[in-house]
């Protein structure tokens, strides 16, 4: 029985809570509804259903090019982030050293410092180096912004691992490197994958970095949405927005599947060990 079991929130508080839920979820069904509208402009309620905005979205070479650029940036920065964050999380969780909290603060800083500041600071430096407008510049920028999130996910996974497993392997004659690859890395894999998925998603949705570091030929999906929302609200954006919501749902489902698959694997392997014994 959980320690929370003895509290029963009263009905009025429950109503407040569900109102808050309604407030949080409201825009999502509205966007989905509008995206199927058959009207020529944004109007309520939609007079009928059609796929015209999806046709316009996927039929436009500009929007499709932006999907491609966003995908490239998100995949590259997710991979880079996974490597950097995994390496950093190991000593931060396992090793014990002075001034650790300062290193924590540095690793988490990009999450706290307003992205607008990071973006203009990088813009000045990259402009001098002639790198603005390239996929590389946007990828580097996204990696900075996404690194803390991946680091947080990986640290919490690593915290749940028993360091004695690796030590046992070393005491049985494995080199530390072999022990890491054979023992720790497989156990850490779900955390690395989850961190990668979150990194992908955050990067895919990031707006401010590509707004400053991108150029006319490297507009990510978010930048193209921004440009059209700032100019005029037209329903094609609803179809693009539904595409982004779909991506979010897909990544969340994948993350859930990853953690479930690994849970099953680890429980079945411990079961096997038990039956061998």
């Amino acid at each position: 029985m959980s320690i929370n079991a003895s509290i029963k929130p009263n009905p009025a508080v429950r109503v407040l809570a569900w109102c808050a839920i309604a407030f949080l979820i409201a825009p999502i069904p509205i966007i989905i509804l509008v995206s199927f509208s058959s009207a020529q402009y944004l109007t309520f309620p939609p007079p009928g259903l059609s796929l015209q905005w999806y046709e316009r979205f996927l039929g436009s070479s500009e929007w499709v090019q932006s999907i491609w650029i966003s995908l490239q940036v998100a995949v590259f920065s997710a991979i880079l982030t996974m490597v950097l964050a995994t390496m950093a999380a190991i000593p931060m969780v396992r090793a014990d050293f002075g001034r650790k909290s300062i290193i924590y603060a540095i690793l988490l800083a990009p999450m706290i410092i307003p992205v607008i500041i990071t973006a203009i600071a990088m813009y000045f430096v990259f402009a001098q180096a002639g790198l603005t407008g390239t996929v590389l510049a946007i990828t580097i920028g996204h990696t900075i912004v996404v690194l803390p999130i991946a680091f947080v996910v990986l640290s919490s996974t690593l915290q749940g691992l028993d360091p004695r497993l690796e030590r046992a392997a070393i005491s049985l004659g494995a080199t530390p490197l072999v022990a890491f690859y054979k023992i720790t890395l497989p156990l850490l894999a779900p955390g690395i994958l989850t961190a990668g998925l979150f990194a992908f998603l955050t990067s895919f949705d990031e707006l401010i970095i590509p707004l400053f570091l991108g150029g006319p030929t490297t507009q990510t999906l978010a930048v193209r949405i921004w440009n059209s929302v700032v100019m005029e609200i037209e329903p094609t954006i609803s179809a693009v927005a539904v595409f982004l919501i779909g991506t979010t749902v897909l990544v969340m489902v994948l993350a859930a599947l990853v953690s479930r698959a690994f849970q099953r694997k680890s429980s079945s392997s411990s079961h096997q060990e038990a039956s061998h014994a």
Partner: protein
Amino acid sequence: MMRACCRAARGETVSAPSPNTEAAIGGTRRKWTPRITSLWLLVPALGFLAVFFAYPLASIVLRSFDGGASGLTLEHYSTFFTVPVYPRILWQTIEISLLTTILCVLVGYPLAYVMANSSPAVRNVMLLMVMLPFMTSVLVRTYGWMVILRPTGLLNHVAQLFGLPAVELLYNRPGMLIGLVYTMTPYVVLTLYSVMRGIDGRLVAVARSLGASGWSAFWRIYFPLSLPGVAGASLLVFILSSGFYITPRLMGGDRDQLLASIIAYQVDVLLNFEFASAIAVILLAITLVCFGIYARAVGLKQLLTSRT
């Protein structure tokens, strides 16, 4: 210290380390850890941050003092504090961030409370309904609110059906506040939820059995225990909203702009990079002071749990 560990990492390889290596590592109090966990693993991430994050930040600090031919100057800062519009925007940024923080706690507290004290099935549904918008692009969600709140949007359509007057809740301060509270509430809910899950509900039950009403048991037992969560969530929301760009820019009016918007405007439109840098440094200072308070009062570990 760092160098000693690097040497240790490269030094002995195969054999299990003897107690002597531990002493050799630096004489300080250290748990034994396999040397693959040594500190050199931090080098790639810290190096990457140094080159692409710390260096650019340092260069905007320098740039904010750049007076061109006249060398170093405080001119950009004095402009900021003497031209009346800028202190007004600074004050407005603080005011709106505070208001957002209070509203977010009011909206988020009951939700986190019910979520932490519900059956697992209800809790999971609620968690999903918080996480889905939280993980969805801010831009997409802001667009959703614009569709709802615009003059010919859903809200006014419903108001019309009930014969109510049309409301203006977009491109003004209330509109911006709705957008900000909406975007920041999930942070409050998730932070509070993780704190509330750790509160021992039996304490409330004991208070009730000793004769306290539900109301006073809540305010005298539960609420004080949840205060660390409220403090952490408030600081986080204040920090995040004071530097927020997307939602205020899209949903606020021209007079309601915050520091982030004028930084972007100085860079994008006026190409006044030095002045933009000075404003960025002021915003950075506010953020770092709040972050320092956060790290002292709440601890960085909280930040680690609230985002997972």
